[in-house]
């Protein structure tokens, strides 16, 4: 079977995607498109399926129905153009390895079977560590890094993948303000270079300043599109229900009680 291009002009095209772990759906009939060159945020309450959406795009969880295309082709055919930053808490940071070694892992896919990373791979990894401001920590045992530094190492590992589309799962979760700014700067630079970034995000306060594209998710798609059209009190209320501080008239968050 030859693969024909389907929606090749979209960095990401998700159609009719349904995922369920048990009998209850985690994602229900998701249609989601991201044009190239934007920084897209995915927000939604806990259990909305944000991480699951990314994982199902990357083929990490089985899909009940639907399909996914990256620049017109399925993930398997586009693997080399995709970078992935999993949640920091998804690995054991007491693993015996160095920051440089973790970043080098981003090149394992390109290396292929039986080949070992050599000087060239080390240099590339080092360059990525420099980009995220972690060059001085290259030889450091990863368990000795702070949460923010670990997150930057993960980001560097995705940078060496030299991808066109990056998926990041809560890269700003549990990091200090300095690291958050550094990460956002790097992501913006990537976007300005024409890369597409798809970021699961948890902090509604910063959505408008960080992203130019937005998906509001709660098992179903609540809204998607340019952030200035989508980031409205009404949409947020539909996603989060009453459990959230609402937008006031000026667009800033206030701590109004629900239903007021």
């Amino acid at each position, binding site marked *: 079977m030859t693969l024909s291009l389907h929606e090749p002009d979209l960095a990401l095209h998700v159609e009719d995607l349904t995922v369920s772990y048990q009998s209850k759906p985690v994602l229900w009939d998701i249609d989601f498109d991201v044009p190239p060159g934007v920084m897209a945020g995915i927000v939604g309450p806990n259990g909305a399926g944000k991480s699951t959406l990314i*994982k199902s795009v*990357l*083929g*990490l969880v089985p899909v009940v129905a639907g399909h996914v295309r990256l620049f017109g082709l399925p993930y*398997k055919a586009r*693997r080399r153009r*995709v970078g*992935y930053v*999993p949640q920091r808490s*998804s*690995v*054991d940071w007491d*693993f*015996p*390895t*160095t920051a440089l*070694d*973790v970043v080098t*892992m981003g090149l*394992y*896919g390109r*290396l292929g*079977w*039986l080949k*070992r*990373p050599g000087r060239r791979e080390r240099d590339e990894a080092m360059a990525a560590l420099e980009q995220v401001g972690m060059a001085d920590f290259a030889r450091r*045992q990863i368990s000795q890094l702070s949460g923010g530094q670990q997150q930057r190492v993960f980001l560097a*590992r995705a940078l060496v993948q030299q991808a066109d589309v990056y998926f990041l799962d809560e890269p700003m979760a549990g990091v200090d303000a300095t690291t958050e700014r550094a990460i956002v700067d790097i992501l913006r630079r990537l976007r300005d270079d024409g890369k597409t970034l798809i970021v699961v995000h948890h902090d509604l306060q910063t959505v408008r300043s960080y992203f130019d594209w937005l998906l509001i998710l709660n098992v179903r798609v609540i809204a998607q599109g340019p952030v200035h059209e989508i980031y409205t009190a009404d949409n947020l209320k539909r996603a989060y229900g009453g459990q959230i501080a609402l937008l006031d008239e000026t667009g800033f968050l206030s701590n109004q009680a629900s239903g007021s």
Partner: protein
Amino acid sequence: MTGFLALLQDYTIQNVVAGAALLGLISGVLGSFAVLRQQSLLGDTMSHSALPGVCLGFIIAGTRHMGSILLGALATGALAALVMLLLTRMSRLKTDAGLGIALSVFFALGVVLLTHIQGMNNAAQGGLDAFLFGQAAATLRSDVWIMGAITAAALTLVAALWKEFKLVTFDPEFAASLGMPVVWLEVLLTVMIALAVVVGLQMVGVVLMAAMVIAPAVAARQWSHRLEDMVWLAAAIGVAGGVFGALLSALSRGLATGPLIILSVSAVVLVSITLAPGRGLIWAALRLWRGRRRLRDQQVLTTLYRLAAHHEDPVYRSEQGMLDTYHGLGTRAALRKLERRGLVEWGEAPPAEPGPERRWVLTPAGIAEAERILASLNGEEA
């Protein structure tokens, strides 16, 4: 000394030592991955579950044929791992419960089969129960060759798939996103641990084999910061413990080899857990104690500072007794240390005041240090 050399020329002892070294090698290397993947207990389940396989291998071959016994052990060991996996995937059972159930069911089955074989009055069944705790002395040269071949195959695989195994152990999701066949790599690692178990059956038996998988890796982890170092070191510890235990048992006629090997390796674990720099318990305790003492000194210093600020007198003189009451314990040692650092002075009391003649006063350096401490505390709170 000549006695020791004669020992090494003994054919049986050569076999035992070679077997113990091979066992240490394979279990050190594969155990490292098992421990890092938090599957230490999987080794235990697989080794206990090898017992019914040993018996089935014997029943099918009709004799104590090593090849079929090991194949049987490998089969039921791997089957137990599979059952555990299915139990935890399909039901709400947690991994530890799944491991426990698989272990006890398979082991019970093995013991039933063992007693059944003993009841058959087959002369060839002699010593099948040795697989429970191992019978190193019964190791033949052909057994050593089988163990060597299995070890060589496993080590070759680990070398060839090194970076894949490393990434699957550290971050399986990322590995999958790169297109690595994660499930197959994990199955391969698990089957190889079953292989290590099979290698150890003859030497240490099904009951103690888990320790052989876990112990060298745990000890090595204490001393190493990279997976490469950890695996080499675990292999070295495994080999050394195996050889040492084997020789010890040869020197002291009558003591069981397998348990001695386990005890040798465990001694290394004990030393590593307490003494290893950085990760050892002693160092951790020392760090804790130092940290607490430093904090105490800082508290006493800031108390002096606050008292001085409260009285709006930078050279306010505080009484020893008052500081003790303030902190609910003796502060003399802490104050002496602060004095040695030039942060406080043991000064004269103001002439007109009642009370003790000598009191504690902050030096300018002490004031600066107290302000630095308080500022950093406030900075963290902000």
